[in-house]
């Protein structure tokens, strides 16, 4: 037999319920109420009280929820008060964990926003990639923009331009966006070129190393080669053009589609060709 009735299962359950119901009270008020009720029971009931006797005493005390509601007073339903009381009961280590989680979430959000906002712009170099296209190109200058027009051919055609990664992140060009079909191309291949002149971004002199999944360091120039197999059959006198590149680019842990708007417009014109069938 225990020395006190407070060890009786019914009393323990009652006090546990009281603790739960008092969660909305200020901690000191909840503690005091529990101490008063425990003292009441301890004095009202002998240590070996029968279960019926204990149950009757608890019934006279009333439900724990009613006691807690009485202690809370008339404004017990105020949401702000309940919230503040609950917050006051949060332990210091829980606050540390919450602060760490908020800092982590904030860092992750910042990282995501910065990574997703990294962009590329076109540099000064812009050429048809194949010499036969470059040899037959017509260039029209309109202000700062240029238009390069070449006849459509059947087979591979492409361009090479210099691009500047003007972000603080290394951007890795993985390939063309799968949904991008310049000139109705059935396949598009993209490569990043590096070399002494390519890294300056102002010419294509000297040896260039092409990489089909190439990285561009922060604030650096590289060449970009985009080659496609033209899939359109243009009639003579008609033309079609592109002014943007849609690439799949990896930045940090994110892989996304990057839309590079070019200063130049690349135009293919139709030809009277017996191969167009």
């Amino acid at each position, binding site marked *: 037999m225990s020395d006190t009735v407070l060890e009786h299962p019914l009393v323990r359950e009652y006090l546990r319920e009281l603790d739960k119901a008092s969660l909305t009270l200020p901690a000191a008020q909840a503690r005091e109420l529990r101490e*008063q009720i425990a*003292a009441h029971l301890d004095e009202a009931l002998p240590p070996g009280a029968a279960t019926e006797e204990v149950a009757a005493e608890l019934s006279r005390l*009333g439900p724990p929820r009613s*006691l807690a509601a*009485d202690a809370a007073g008339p404004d017990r339903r105020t949401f702000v008060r309940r919230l503040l009381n609950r917050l006051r009961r949060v332990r210091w280590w829980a606050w540390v964990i919450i602060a760490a989680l908020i800092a982590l979430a904030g860092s992750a959000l910042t990282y995501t926003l910065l990574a997703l906002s990294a962009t590329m712009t076109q540099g000064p170099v812009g050429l048809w990639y194949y010499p036969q296209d470059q040899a037959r190109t017509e260039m029209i200058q309109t202000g700062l923009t240029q238009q390069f027009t070449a006849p459509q051919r059947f087979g591979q055609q492409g361009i090479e331009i210099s691009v500047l990664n003007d972000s603080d992140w290394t951007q890795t060009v993985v390939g063309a966006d799968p949904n991008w079909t310049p000139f109705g191309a059935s396949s598009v291949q993209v490569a990043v070129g590096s070399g002494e002149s390519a890294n300056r971004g102002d010419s294509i002199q000297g040896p260039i190393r092409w990489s089909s999944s190439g990285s561009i360091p922060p604030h650096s120039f590289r060449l970009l080669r985009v080659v496609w197999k033209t899939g359109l059959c243009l009639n003579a006198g008609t033309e079609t053009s592109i002014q943007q590149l849609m690439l799949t680019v990896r930045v940090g842990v994110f892989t996304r589609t990057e839309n590079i708007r070019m200063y130049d417009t690349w135009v293919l014109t139709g030809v009277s060709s017996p191969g167009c069938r």
Partner: protein
Amino acid sequence: MGSDPGMTELRRGVLGPCVLALLDERPRFGLELVRDLAAAGGLLTSEGTVYPLLNRLRDARLVTSEWHDPVGERARRYYSITSEGREQLKAFRADWTDFASTVESVLFPPSAEKTRRTPTGEEPGDE
């Protein structure tokens, strides 16, 4: 006594002055106070509500509490009435007399006297 919400509110309203009145006689500890109120009959809907009430009275400076821990006896928290509590009790007693008399006159007007039952259940004048 009835247990409808109106009576519960009425009991709640008069319980504070009743506690003050008991403490005006002498300081009491919690269980003693609860037992004395219960013995008066019909004042308590549940005994546990006395403790939140005592805490509110103490917060309002109408009562104070103090631990007594005599050697060889159980430590108890005793509640005593303060001078402010006495003032409030005095005011309530004066108000209550008028209030009870007003309620009495409204609830039991002379025209209803003949249907008013005595505590034994007999009509007045039946003897």
